[in-house]
């Protein structure tokens, strides 16, 4: 009995460990962070078929794709005001089109940047060059998942080194190219 009591904290910790292990092995968290505006990629990229690079316009000319300026948002939304109707997102959140778009306009009128939360992060020691991948013809979805189906943007892939290397291995043109694509200095410096 005494022994059981003694072992109990250990058992509880084991449980924590199991949860941790589950987190580690499971596919990435399907819930993205709560953004200041419920910007739905599903509505923009999915239903309205706006190309990714219309907003992320630097993806093919810079290592960093950039996020659109408030000016860019308002470029469309000065005309698109949104109906006064509700919209239910994939995970059941209910928003009002008009109210949500009004938030963008608010930022624009106050000339304030929208404090978006970063969804896809890379550690500092990884240098990922968007330009090279886009120019080679990869779809954004390869790494970012089916963005056009996401109401709340989340990190679809873990983007760990295994993910990168697998793809690099599959896409090498020849042995020399493979050697280059698997070279540490390709991404780490």
């Amino acid at each position, binding site marked *: 009995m005494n022994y059981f009591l*003694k072992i109990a*904290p*250990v058992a509880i*910790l*084991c449980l*924590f*460990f199991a*949860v*941790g*292990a589950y*987190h*580690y092995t499971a596919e990435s*968290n399907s819930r993205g*962070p709560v953004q200041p505006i419920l910007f739905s990629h599903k509505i923009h990229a999915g239903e309205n078929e706006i190309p990714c690079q219309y907003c992320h316009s*630097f993806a093919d*000319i*810079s*290592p*960093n794709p*950039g*996020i*659109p*300026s*408030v*000016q860019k948002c308002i470029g469309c939304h000065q005309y698109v005001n949104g109906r006064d109707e509700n919209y239910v997102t994939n995970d059941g959140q209910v928003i009002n089109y008009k109210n949500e778009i009004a938030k963008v306009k608010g*930022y*624009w009128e106050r*000339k*304030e*940047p*929208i*404090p*978006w*939360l*970063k969804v896809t*992060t890379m*550690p*500092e*020691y990884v*240098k990922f*060059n968007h*330009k*090279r991948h886009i*120019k080679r013809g990869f779809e954004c979805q390869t790494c970012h998942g089916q963005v056009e189906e996401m109401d709340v943007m989340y*990190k679809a892939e873990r983007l760990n080194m295994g993910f990168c290397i697998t793809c690099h291995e599959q896409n090498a043109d020849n042995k*020399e190219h493979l*050697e*280059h694509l698997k*070279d*540490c*200095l390709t991404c*780490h*410096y």
Partner: protein
Amino acid sequence: MSENKNNGLSRRDFLKVVGIAGGTAAVTGACSGDPVEQIIPYVIPPESYVPAVPKFYASTCRECPAGCGIVVKNRDGRAIKVEGNPSNPLNNGSTCARGQASLQGLYNPDRIRSPLGRKENRKNLVPIGWDEGIDTLSGKINELVSSGRGSRIAYLSNNVSGTLDSLINKWIGSMGGRRYTYESFSYDPIKEANRICFGIDKIPTYRIEKAEYVLSFGADFLETWLSPTYFARGFSEIRTYKNGKMGKVIQVEPRASVTAASADLWVAVKPGTEVFLALGIANVMIRNKLNKRNYSAVRSLISEYTAEKVSKLTDVPVETINQIASDFSKNKSIAIGGGVATSGTNATETMVAVNVLNYLAGNIGSTVDFSDTLSLSSVSSFKGITKLFQDMKDGKVELLIVHGTNPAFTLPKSLKAVEALSEVDYIVSLSSFMDETTEMASLVLPDHHPLESWGDYRVNRSYTGIIQPVMHPIFNTKSTGDLILEVSKKIDSTKELFEEPSYYEYLRNSWKKFAPTKSPSSKGFEVFWKESLKNGGIKLGISPRKVSINVLQKAGSHQDTTTRSPQDSTIDKILDELGTVGKKIAILIEKVKDFISGVSIDKAVEAIYGAGVQVLVLFIAIQLFTYIGAASIASIIIASGFSYRPLALIFTALRKYGFNEIFPSVVQKFKEQGVTKEEILITIENYPKEVKKEVKLKLKEWVNENWEETSYPPTLNYLKFSEPNIKGDGEFYFVTYPSYRYYDGSGANKPWLQELPEALSTSVWDSYVEVHPDTANKLGIREGSYLNIRSPQGEFKVQAFVYEGIRPDTVAVPMGQGHTSYGRYAKGRGVNPLDLLPDVRDARSGGLAFLSTKVSVSNAGSHSLLVRTQYTKTQHDRDVAKAVTLGDLKKGGYDKHHEEYDFYPPREYAKHRWAMNIDLSKCTGCGACVTACYAENNIPFVGKDQVAKRRDMAWIRIERYFDKDKSGKMDVRFLPMLCQHCGNAPCEPVCPVYATYHSPEGLNGMVYNRCVGTRYCANNCTYKVRRFNWYTYKFPEPLNWQLNPDVTVRTKGVMEKCTFCVQRIKFGQDIAKDGDGVVKDGDIVTACQQACPTNAIVFGDMKDKSSKVAKLEKDKRGYKVLEVINTKPGITYLKKLKWDNA
């Protein structure tokens, strides 16, 4: 144990639980999702903004008066790297260490962040708003000007030549105030000597790159003298081995500077006697008929200085003097003077002697170029500055505006500058840093850093650089130009002075004078302006200036008045052609002959002055005789209605003394009496129509161009050469010299410069005194011992550096340290050698004499480690930094390349093999590469304590070795040491986690995120180039803004080392892939290579057989360091090329 068990968990169980808990925490902690960061978009993005793609802005470096062109890399709105501007005619794409470190001035955590004021006489400066600051200043000025005390306003700035200079002059001038420009090193003796010898009160451009033989009297031309990067390029030319030839550099000075270390011969002259050595060399030249110019002019000056006599005076062997004289005259040469040689009380005399040498060798007009004089020539003379400080002491200055200069630190204590400043009612400092002078200010209105400002800088007559902001201002500062415009609008007397709303507009308007199209709103100007911004400045056409060497010839003629000078025939010719007028003059000349012949030049000038401005114009007309002809001169005479008596006087005086002697005297006389240029122009304009329009025009043109520059007559005739007057009764000469790291002390607040090892001592973060080994023995001290250095003016205690490169009778301390303010990195560090100097000036120019005291040196009895990065002085016979003599190279006595058999097959490289080549002949040890590397690669500075533990983080270091050559002369070798990217690297196989490995492109890769910090690699590295992060080093805000986003910032426990700037390789390859995919030779430039002022470093692809680096690898001088270990380095060094007999 059993007791424990009864009471609770056993030790073993406890460890189990803790272990599991820790593991769980680690796992869940590490995997609980990525840290949530914000990404802030632009509201309205700047035009043509692309994130992560750098932009480059051309500007001008303002760390010293040289004014090199720079290109600043801006990434996402922050300036992160300074590089040389390749289109700049001076520095040609290179920078020095100070230029690199200008970023740490910009991002200095100790910058003044807003205007400061003293409220209700409180002791401390407290932050105020700009409105309050401007109101206070304009109120103060209004009060002074309205009560007629405008002349009690003084503006003291550094050399801000260009538009800002004229703005300040106009503003201060309109209020009746006084304007001074003060540079710590103003080269007064050079200017004065040039005035004496050539009548030009200017600093010429010394074209070292055109010379084959450089004879430098103390000029530290590779460190701080005039324009070090420009001279370094010239040095590189001299050191280039072509057609079996190489130039030679001789450095004459009592202590071997970094420049002397790179010279072929260091002549350890007795301090202050350089003047005699120069005269002795001239004497030998004449005696051996080696002179290229007529020597009669200077014979009398140098005849007594025979080689034997000079040898006794200077401690330089006769053979050396003879050798130098012979080499100097036989090669295309140049003699320069500076540093210690021009800092005694006889400095001007030394420079005159140097000028004589240049004259005799025919260098004036070829390697010494007076047509392109430096803007530095026009700073206030030291006489003027001392007058200002005297006036302050006398309470004649009520408002002093100090801008870009720190006299409280850079003037010796004995000059009592601090006392003088404290007598000033109100000091306004425009400094961006809290320095010694700013601390005394009542109001601080901080200027932008030059990298945040608009402006321009006139370097010399032929080039004006643009200063453009390379990023948004960091703090609440205001550019001085804008400040003046705003203040002037609030002052009653200057309200209407400027129309422009901002200094940017003012600058643009002032640049309209350079534009090809003059109309202000034209499109042409916009094109011109954009082009100038892109190029970083504008090259201006200059007419070559003919330097009248007649001056020197005339100097001799005063002893021999019977022979007629060439001018006399001109005078007769003019008189002949004047016709009847001439005849009348000739008759009168006979009459006044007796009077004039007995009159001295001064009396004649006096008499001519009495005749008025009309006569001055006539003088100018006669001067222009060949252009305008005698008829025009006659017309002027008639139009002016001269009486014939002064005419006779003029012509007689001209006959007797010649133009060159009498004309500047006359002009000077008129100037002294307050005759202005405008007055002369009006006189010319008012001539009746007998005088032709084009003659008037010609006269006016001449007056406009030459009036300011024509001055006093040469006094070479009466010059006597003397030994310097050295005060103090100690037994050692005290030499203090500008440091190439801190300049006059303004660099001391930049940690990169503090941590840059001084090339010879390799000391960091502190001061030291150089003493000769013999002196050290005599004093019973060793390296690091504390010495008391005492002069009548003061005393300090400083550590000794035992140095072979200094005379036994001399001790030397570099300037720049010993700040009592100026931020956390500078304050309270080292000693200020200026504290020991007496108030002594150069007798002729009035320049500050740095070589002016003897000191006594005594052992203070204590010792501690003199913190340095390289303690070993010799190569211990390892022959790391190799050298080869010219003779041996020609004979083929160099190491033959031969293939060693290897057990392993050679490594194959598929596409590239990145490699480097370093020419040891060209490396001057200046440290530009080291600082550039710090800037590019986010290398932390670690401070003195950590360097003492050998934990400095530099990826590239300059190793220096002192050797003796065959003849026993000191032979200094510099060897830039960085990761050799070995083909067979010892570090790679010992890494247990494969954090370091050989990349398919020949790089020795270092993967930080793999590294676990065993440090095996560093232990096994042959070249000791690996650096370990013992801490996560801090970059205090906003120094961290400078960090390069393309390079990982390393944390504690990680090994790091040179990567061959892999981020630049990747960038180059990325750009190439956007095009045809081919990386061309020269597309990828490493940071060290980019900075190197002598182009000693070449980087490229060894697989590309046509690349520069591949060709240089096969050079006869090529070798690998410690090749015998078979590491197969990727860096080839070229042996230092030496003269068989320097």
